[in-house]
């Protein structure tokens, strides 16, 4: 059984377009097209100039984040049946980052913030012969943190990141920061807290919680940010 799906897609190719526009396009889908990404692949077969990123199509690589009917999400995890069909599905690039082309944004700023929190384990003891030990309870502290796929749905839905993408680390970066703060094997906790004690880097978070609302992996950056603040308070008083 086939049906017709209408789209409004943000289009902009700096090579030929003076300014962005919304393209109306529709496509026939059948029962095997379950996810939005399946349908977008069909769209691209129809018009090969529609540009978007995609890779794993199962929600672990984080490539196909976009703004779907006004809300950020992954195309591969969005069921086509969950989208209202009485009006066209509106696809736009992630908000708040510069557009390179069509649905592809320039993520430089996002990754710059991720890199700024020193996203790697710091442990200056000489590495032992075998694994460093960690109790299952201590390891559990990392659940809900390490699973981040860096898709940028959260940071690009955060008003604080929109206004200060150059100075506010953003939810994804702060989640990663707490992932290392919470790791019992990491020895740089104080330095990490020092680095975040800044009116912009951490404290632009006003607990708006859009990040929690959109995270396709069900993670909670706001909670992680809260825990960083708790640790800072405990350290200061």
């Amino acid at each position, binding site marked *: 059984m086939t049906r017709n799906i209408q789209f409004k897609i943000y289009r902009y190719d700096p090579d030929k377009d003076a300014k962005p526009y919304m393209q109306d396009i529709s496509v026939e889908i059948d029962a095997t097209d379950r996810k939005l990404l399946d349908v977008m692949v069909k769209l691209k077969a129809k018009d090969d100039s529609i540009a978007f990123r995609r890779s794993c199509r199962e929600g672990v690589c984080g490539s196909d984040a976009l703004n779907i009917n006004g809300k950020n999400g992954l195309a591969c995890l969005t069921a086509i049946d969950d989208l209202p069909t009485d009006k066209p599905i509106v696809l736009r690039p992630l908000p708040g980052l510069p557009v390179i082309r069509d649905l592809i944004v320039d993520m430089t700023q996002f990754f710059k913030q991720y890199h700024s929190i020193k996203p790697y384990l710091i442990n200056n003891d000489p590495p032992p012969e075998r694994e460093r030990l960690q109790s299952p309870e201590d390891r559990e502290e990392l659940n809900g943190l390490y699973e981040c796929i860096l898709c940028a749905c959260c940071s690009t839905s955060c008003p604080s990141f929109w*206004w200060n993408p150059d100075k506010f680390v953003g939810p994804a970066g702060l989640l990663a920061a707490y992932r290392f703060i919470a790791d019992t094997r990491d020895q740089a906790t104080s330095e990490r807290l020092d680095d975040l*004690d800044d*009116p*912009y*880097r*951490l*404290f632009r978070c*006003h607990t708006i919680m859009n990040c929690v609302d959109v995270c396709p992996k069900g993670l909670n950056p706001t909670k992680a940010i809260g825990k960083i*603040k708790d640790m*800072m308070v405990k350290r200061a008083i």
Partner: protein
Amino acid sequence: MNRIVVGAHYGLKDWLVQRVTAVVMALYTLLMIVAVPTAAGGYDGWRALMSHGLIRFASFVFIVCLCYHAWVGVRDIWMDYVKPTAVRLILHALTLLALVGYAGWATQIIWRL
């Protein structure tokens, strides 16, 4: 080249103060909800209540808290929306002056009662 420099190290203090002042203001509000209905009616009753030593002190603390709380909040707004440093500094200064002025003025009113 516009280098982004961060690391002003007053983030935690202001964030904490904003929360503490919020709690103080909430307590003051509760105090008022309890105290106002016990006061006698009319201007005289109000005046008696507000000039009571304890209430006078609480009001003063409330005003200071309100101004500090507002300072952090309004400053954040300038930081978000006003990018040129000079303009932002002027706005910060004006905000600060206004808030200090308001605090003095409010205190004066309370102590004149």
